[in-house]
């Protein structure tokens, strides 16, 4: 190994402090002056890093993903058109057996309920969300909706326990019904249903092939009517 002199060592330390060459390492063992300089630059680097790491805007990653999905929606892709040609046979996934389960409520249920309560005001939204926008939100979760799912009055992405999910509010019989879809799976058994226990909301979690779907409403009749609406659809999913 060629020996390194102080000038070469200091040049490297001044410009590329993460250099891991054996020659530099050996020189720092042998030269206390250069070692001292190296240690000062390490401290300075640490200070620089802290200064450079400014706060990142809240929700940046989620906004980037939403923009990407919306940009997908805008593009006229032949593959997408072919997919829509299959739309007659592609419906929202439906639970086969709507029987109550005695399984304890998973933590994600509580997180979803809290999220809906935090975003309570959107239950009063009155948009007319186009089906194509609904499906853009649902597609990453492996589900797609048919027209007879009903009127969506709000649709958007949400972050629940650091997971990017879809949050949709439908017009219900008496009160709105909220659908949330998240990537976390509550069970490997697709179609497994778990009731959500909450004083304010009636609800159910359904395991999907690629995540979990939650349905909630403050009115039990509205929830049951919406579930029937889904059950009457074909049970095909991507």
């Amino acid at each position, binding site marked *: 190994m060629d020996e390194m002199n102080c000038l070469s060592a200091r040049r490297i330390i001044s410009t590329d402090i993460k250099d891991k060459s054996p020659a530099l390492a050996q020189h720092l063992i042998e030269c206390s002056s250069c070692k001292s300089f190296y240690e000062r630059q390490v401290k300075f680097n640490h*200070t620089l*890093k802290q200064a450079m790491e*400014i706060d990142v805007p809240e929700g940046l990653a989620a906004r980037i993903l939403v923009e990407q999905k919306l940009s997908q929606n805008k593009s006229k892709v032949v593959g997408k058109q072919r997919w829509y040609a299959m739309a007659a046979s592609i419906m929202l996934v439906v639970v086969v057996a709507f029987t109550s389960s005695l399984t304890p409520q998973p933590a994600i249920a509580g997180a979803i309920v809290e999220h809906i309560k935090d975003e309570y005001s959107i239950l009063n939204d009155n948009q007319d969300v186009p089906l194509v926008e609904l499906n853009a939100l649902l597609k990453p979760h492996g589900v797609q909706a048919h027209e007879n799912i009903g009127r969506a009055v709000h649709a958007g992405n949400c972050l629940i326990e650091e997971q990017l999910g879809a949050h949709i509010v439908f017009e219900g019989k008496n009160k709105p019904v909220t659908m949330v879809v998240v990537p976390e799976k509550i069970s490997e058994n697709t179609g497994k249903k778990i009731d959500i226990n909450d004083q304010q909301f009636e609800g159910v979690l359904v395991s999907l092939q690629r995540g979990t779907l939650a349905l909630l409403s403050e009115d039990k009749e509205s929830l049951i009517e919406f579930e029937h609406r889904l059950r009457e659809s*074909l049970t095909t999913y991507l």
Partner: protein
Amino acid sequence: MKENTPSDGLVDMNVAEQSFESMVHAYSKDLYRYGYWLSRDKEIAEDLVQETFLRAWRAIDSLNDAKAAKSWLFTILRRENARRFEKKSAQAELTTLDDEMVEVFATVDDDFASVDGMAVRAALKELPVNYAEPLVLQVIGGYSCDEIAEIIGVKPGAVMTRVFRARQKLRTLLEDEGQLASM
């Protein structure tokens, strides 16, 4: 329950989306910070990151090596930032470091322990962008001088000079502010 087997196109799309989402979560923060130190503006930085990822999504098929994703994204952002300016002025490049400057720089015994973080940020904002940029790539991106040279399109020697000048200038600015107490 009836299942449809996804067509190959949809499976590929799902894999691409998952890769893209992973990249967003892994790199969006560092890219934002890089964009900020290039533009010195938070709104522009966010626009740069948004545009970077949109371009990356459109060209995702061209990314063959996942390990190269970070450098690829940094390069895209750099080009997005360059588009904001109508002219690129050629700058005379010093490609060699002066030995005497290195020796002088190395012998001053600074105490960085007491430097105020806000003062460092203020000093960073005063650095010319062509000095700040390689320093940011080195400190936040963790890149070597050779890697930085590839990203910004200059020779490695030029990167070393710019990084050195950045550190030298920062020290001067902090000394002028009374932030550095030489021991």
